[in-house]
């Protein structure tokens, strides 16, 4: 779905004609994609379809389910925007600034990918409750980071930040500094240089980072259930409803909710991807 922006790094293998054995690689690729993506998705849609249109709506479009989609979508969108902005900053610092501990910071960015997200949810919620390390100062100020919508956003930023950083970082590294220098010499201010020269070049990557963050956040379950409090109509995310229906062994109803979530994610990704391509086109 997402076209990764070219990093500009010369590929070591570029000289070789093409990948050897086109037939073999094509066969393996289609086998892998079919087995890992297409078949499971087809089963999902088929199971949901077994309900018929009325049954599907009754399962997937209740007031409570709609409230849960709204929570999932809005929290994910806010988190993806926050991740993109923070990610841009972190990527810039890592790519451009030499400072002691940079390598350590660089490695730490990937930690959210390796940490079981349930652990992140538990730790975050313990930090922000009224008696927690941070919560004891924040809760009296009216900032509730646990068992609230804010808590959901916090963990979603945590799980999605690596995507936002890692997509943008190589693009910044590959930027031609001479262009920036030229811009300054020709009399542009720092802000003008950033907005007119740097930003157009990295914006497609930032948008890709946003899309990956959004997709990651929409599907997240493990960390959110520990911090959201799961209150229906307020902090209940759609995946919790799926689990509730599975507990009743109502597979088809559960997959109906999953299909709605899937359609929403795919639509968002297609839109963002189109935007990204337009930006990339304009930048050239």
């Amino acid at each position, binding site marked *: 779905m997402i076209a990764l922006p070219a990093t500009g790094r010369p590929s070591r293998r570029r000289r070789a004609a093409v990948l050897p*054995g086109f037939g*073999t690689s094509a066969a393996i690729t289609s086998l892998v994609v079919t087995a890992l993506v297409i078949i499971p998705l087809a089963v999902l849609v088929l199971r949901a379809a077994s309900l018929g249109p009325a049954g599907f709506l009754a399962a997937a479009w209740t*007031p409570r389910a709609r409230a849960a989609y709204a929570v999932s979508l809005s929290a994910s969108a806010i988190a993806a925007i926050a991740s993109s902005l923070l990610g841009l900053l972190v990527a810039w610092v890592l790519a451009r600034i030499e400072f002691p501990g940079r390598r350590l910071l660089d490695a730490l960015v990937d930690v959210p990918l390796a940490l079981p997200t349930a652990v992140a949810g*538990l730790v975050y919620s*313990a930090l922000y409750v009224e008696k927690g390390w941070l919560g004891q100062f924040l809760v009296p100020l009216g900032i509730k980071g646990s*068992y609230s919508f804010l808590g959901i956003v916090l963990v979603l930023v945590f799980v999605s930040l690596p995507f936002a950083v890692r997509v943008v970082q190589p693009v910044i590294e590959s930027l031609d500094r001479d262009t920036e220098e030229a811009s300054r010499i020709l009399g542009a201010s720092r802000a003008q240089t950033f907005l007119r020269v740097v930003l157009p070049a990295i914006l497609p990557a930032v948008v890709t980072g946003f899309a990956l963050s959004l997709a990651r956040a929409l599907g997240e379950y493990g960390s959110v259930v520990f911090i959201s409090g*799961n209150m229906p109509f307020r902090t209940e995310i759609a995946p919790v409803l799926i689990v*509730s229906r599975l507990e*009743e062994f109502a597979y088809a109803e559960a997959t109906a909710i999953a299909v709605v979530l899937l359609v929403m994610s795919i639509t968002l990704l297609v839109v963002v991807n189109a935007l990204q391509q337009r930006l990339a086109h304009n930048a050239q």
Partner: protein
Amino acid sequence: MVPLSPRMAAAAMFLLASLAGCAKQAGETSDPLTLLNVSYDPTRELYRDINAAFAKHYEQEHGRPVSVKQSHAASGSQARAVIDGLDADVVTLAVWPDVEAVAKSGLAHPDWQNRFENNSIPYHSVVVFVVRKGNPKGIRDWADLNRGNVSIITPNPKTSGNGKYSFLAAWGAALAAGGSEDDAQKFVAAIYRRTPVLDTGARAATATFSQKGIGDVHLTFESEAHLEVDESKGDLEIIYPKRSIRVDPPVAVVDTNVDRRSTRHAAEAYLGFLYTPEGRAIIAKHHYRPWGIDPPPPGKSETWPVIDTFDIDFVGGWKTAMKKFFSEGGVFDAIYQPGAENE
């Protein structure tokens, strides 16, 4: 279609061969025997001890070494895993509907309940209260939960067996106190309005109450309450309400799997072991109440606290209860309908 090149054919052969290899490994039965007990979250510590004792016992009796592996997660998802193909020899789950679902899928005999004593329920527990040290809110019985600013921790009954039992305990307690169905409904609604967090599983709720300090009272199984209180090192204590629901976690042999793997003898002996004096003593040590007369006490000088219990039939039996309370649009969902808070 890409023409089949020799390389491609070789790649396909390799894939097929590795798939075949996996299949062969999974189907093999080997000496020594291994059993897989698929259970739910809180029994991890119990079955660790049971498995060690059973292995010794079985080898002495039958001269064949056996090792029992255990798998733990939320009861409902464990049932689904077995139905979807997890190779369990026995299931020891939290609630009757989960074992029944395994049987319904054809993996266990429809008559599974009558295979072992006491409807295949080797031990019980009860739903009790855990409160903060010194019981500052003075919580003694169910009615105290709906007083003042008491706030309650219990997991979501739709996703947790522990949560289901707490819900049913509250409902039954209201009925047993002479209330009508309407009174019971008002009482459970009041309880969930005082529940600030709906964790999806029992252990998450325990962490919310004991580690994060949320809530004044935590509703949970007696066995879990003991673990929680021991871990808190004096910060928490257990309160026994006058009456509560009896928790009946059933066990069953997964017939299809044991016949295919030729492990029936060991699997049946394993569940039977839970009813032997040795098995009962281990069960009691973990604060589950062994079934039968003169249950061994939890510790040498301890006795089981007396508590009036009612069972699932008092609140309508599992089939009715699942539908009435926990299905989509049921009593539990109604508590959270918009506008319900103003009633």
